[in-house]
């Protein structure tokens, strides 16, 4: 807890505000029934969490979250919404107790795990002793890239990053092929089928 109080109060205030906004949005997503509003709010959630990642100095994660969460997944979710109804069905209140208990137990375990984590930017944490410090020292002479994370991701682990990119690309391609595009997309096929059925009924 000591790190929390010795930290600058400005970033602390920003962190608290951003996390409070995240909390409100998450509650609203769980409560709303209009699927479109949920898609919109999930975009807001991604943007705020990306801003928060940047506030805690995880710039590369923030980039990915903004591009994938706010940009791509909003479009994919809207495309998926074409295939289904506009509003979710109301659920029976009692059916939610099981998932709620599972989520609560997971949250308690995660919070328990954070007690052992080192503070943000702690020089004595395992990540910052040993190899981590070595990278900070040799990075500039090896690669000439000022940001250590960038040099590790794009230079020391270049092939690993390329493999990751290929995996993400293939996953996106698979989703695109499942949902389809243009007149051969799943939504268009279903719509045409419905139209054909209607014409069959009329004649």
């Amino acid at each position, binding site marked *: 807890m000591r790190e929390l109080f010795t930290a600058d109060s*400005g970033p602390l*205030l920003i962190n608290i505000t951003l996390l409070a906004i995240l909390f409100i949005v998450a509650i609203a997503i769980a409560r709303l029934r209009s699927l479109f509003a949920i898609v919109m*709010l999930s975009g*807001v959630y991604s*943007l*705020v969490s990306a801003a928060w990642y940047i506030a805690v100095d995880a710039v590369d994660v923030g980039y990915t979250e*903004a591009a994938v969460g*706010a940009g791509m997944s909003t*479009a994919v979710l809207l495309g998926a919404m074409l295939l289904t109804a506009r509003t979710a069905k109301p659920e029976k209140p009692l059916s939610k107790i099981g998932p709620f208990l599972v989520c609560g137990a997971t949250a308690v375990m995660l919070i328990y795990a954070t007690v052992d984590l080192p503070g943000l930017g702690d020089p004595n944490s395992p990540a910052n002793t040993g190899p981590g410090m070595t990278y900070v020292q040799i990075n500039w002479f090896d690669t000439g890239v000022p940001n250590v994370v960038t040099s590790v991701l794009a230079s020391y682990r270049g092939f690993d990053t390329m493999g990751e990119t290929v995996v993400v690309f293939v996953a996106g391609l698979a989703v695109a092929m499942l949902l389809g595009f243009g007149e051969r997309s799943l939504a268009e096929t279903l719509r045409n089928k419905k139209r054909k059925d209607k014409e069959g009924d009329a004649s």
Partner: protein
Amino acid sequence: MTAAALIAILIGMVLLLVRALMGPTLYDRILAVNAFGTKTVLVIGLLGYVMGRPDFLDIAMIYTLINFVTTIAILKFFRYRSFQVPLARRVDPAKGGE
């Protein structure tokens, strides 16, 4: 000074969030989400100066582009119910011309 601006923008974000949650029509929500993205960009830009790292401005610019593309995609989706339609107005060959 920058900190005061940051706090003002955070308050603005909360107000926009209220609009996005309550928004009676879909367009209220779209507008609120778009403005929310702009506020995020401003927060990141100001955060760079508060934390003494003005190079965050580059990230803010990337966010601006993503926000713009997302809003266009959503509005297009609502106009045409599909992403596969060109945004330009299509000329009807039967009527000829615009």
